[in-house]
């Protein structure tokens, strides 16, 4: 499996083209549309990174806000002393380490423990960070002043999203990807053909966590003032779950389908009806569970399969 086959080459070409087109956006608009596209790009990166892990393992991770906050804090704490790219690397490393610790503690035992642990993880990290800051620093918040522009943030997020896609693409071609496919089918068989299932999941969670932390690091300059409640906002975790599941996680590009409409809708709801955001989020969860359990892409695939089925039936009838 060294060379790319025709379909893979096509997907790579299409992906490159899409990135190229998306990169031109700041040339046309610097205001409202750029701002909303930064949000879309952020959630595109977060949701795709989330799906890298939660898609194949079917384990709902609610740790996104913890990794994201860790990323913004890495930048906030070091911006006066270290160059920005180093901070991004530190963010990635700390995201991976946290994911590794959480994974090592919970993924060896059972999936439910993992979900519960990640459920409160952001709040746990937030409390610890707040406590450390009140204990050892003078102020609770951190100022991040840089000359990084909104356009640059957008481009960095775009590059990150592209990197997540490329990683997902490469994982799918690797033994890790094959192992995950088997784990998704039957975990007992996976173990008995020689797969270290816990290790595979932990590695994947670390990759996902590192990417999410990088997203936080990229967004830090945009906030200019970072404090624990906003950096570790648990809502980020929930929105990521909704958008990714809305799009569907069977395909690498699935989450994108959920991200674009939902980000725009949430932007509208939170500016017009700020008191109703919770209800919208609640309804979104219910809609996903009851109406579209496999996401929009799942619906499309099923419809396509049905059409194909109808097609062959029709052909058999004429033959």
């Amino acid at each position, binding site marked *: 499996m060294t060379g790319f086959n025709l379909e893979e080459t096509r997907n790579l070409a299409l992906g490159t083209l899409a990135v190229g087109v998306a990169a031109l956006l700041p040339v046309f608009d610097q205001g409202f549309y750029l701002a909303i596209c930064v949000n879309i790009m952020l959630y595109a990166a977060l949701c795709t990174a989330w799906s890298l892990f939660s898609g194949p393992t*079917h384990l*709902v991770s609610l740790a996104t806000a913890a990794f994201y906050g860790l990323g913004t804090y890495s930048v906030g704490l070091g911006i006066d002393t270290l160059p920005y790219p180093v901070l991004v690397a530190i963010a990635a490393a700390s995201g991976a380490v946290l994911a590794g610790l959480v994974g090592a*503690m*919970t993924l060896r*035992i*059972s*999936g*439910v*423990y993992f*979900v*519960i*642990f990640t*459920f*409160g993880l952001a*709040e*746990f990290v937030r*409390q*610890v960070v*707040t*406590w450390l800051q*009140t204990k050892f620093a003078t102020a609770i918040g951190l100022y991040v002043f840089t000359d990084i522009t909104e356009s640059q943030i957008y481009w960095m997020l775009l590059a990150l999203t592209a990197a997540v896609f490329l990683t997902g693409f490469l994982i799918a071609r690797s033994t890790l990807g094959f192992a995950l496919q088997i784990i998704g089918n039957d975990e007992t068989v996976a173990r008995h053909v020689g797969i270290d299932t816990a290790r595979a999941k932990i590695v994947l969670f670390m990759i996902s966590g590192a990417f999410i932390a990088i997203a936080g690091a990229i967004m830090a300059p945009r906030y200019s003032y970072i404090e624990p409640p906003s950096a570790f906002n*648990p809502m980020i975790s*929930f929105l990521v*779950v909704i958008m990714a*599941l809305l799009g569907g996680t069977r395909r690498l590009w699935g989450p994108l389908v959920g991200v674009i409409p939902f980000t725009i809708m949430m932007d509208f709801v939170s500016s017009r009806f700020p*008191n*109703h*955001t*919770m*209800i*919208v*989020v*609640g*309804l*979104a*969860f*219910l809609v*996903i*569970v*009851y109406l579209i*359990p496999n996401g929009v892409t799942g619906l499309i695939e099923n419809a396509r399969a049905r059409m194909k089925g109808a097609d062959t039936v029709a052909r058999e009838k004429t033959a």
Partner: protein
Amino acid sequence: MNILVTGILLSGTYALIALGLTLQYGVARIMNLGNGETLVAACFVAFWLYTGLAINPLVGLLLIAPAAFLINWAIYAVALRPLVKRAKNRGQLEADSILATFGLLFLLQGLMIIGFGGDYHSYTFLAQRFDILGNSYGLNRVVAFAAAAAIAAGLWFFLYRTRQGTAMRAVAVDPGSANLVAIDVARTAAVAFALGGALTACGGALISTFYTFNASMGVVFTMKALIIVIMGGVGDVRGAVLAAVILGLSETLVASLVDPGLTLAATYMLFILVLLFRPQGIFGRAPT
């Protein structure tokens, strides 16, 4: 000593909430992440009964518990049973029920925020001093603890001394086999879910007598209850009570000796210890 008693008093209500969750998860197999919202709703109802109609919260329990039972029954029948029917295996039901109860969590929380706003509420009930071993505590806390203990004892009696309760424990151990001995698993699961909701609501009504609450604090309580359930072992009544005491104590210890902002962090440290050393729960037997 002061800390010890405060911690134990707090743990009474924690135990009720966790018992509610352990019934819902252990018997009905629904990981109800909206459990904390039931608690908050009960807080508001108790608040409204007391300030609006001057009904004593302890009397209010007689209204709140049956109402919570019926509402949770309805939630199970309408929203959750379709998921149970659809699920091919335990894992899928777990994933589905987690997402569905997230939906309920946000929906209920959103409705309560619209209804009551984000402000903190509280009312004064039995705010006298009560002396235990030379230190004084709020009488409301002592009464809440006593009521919680009475309810927990009633639950224990129900589970271990009645046919219905035995059926419930049988379903908790193995729904497949319970079916074979003529237990109506679907109905038992619904009753367990509703009963779990009622217990949690009792916990909420009791906690409202001494605790300031707001519409969005449910999640924190769900988190605590989940950790108690895991610590005690899923479906284990004794374990849940003991775990609640440990949690109440360690929270009070950390809050009074280190920093009140670290209560959840303290809970988490316990959680981590449990995961590392006794993932099967305090009384759970090592997996063979």
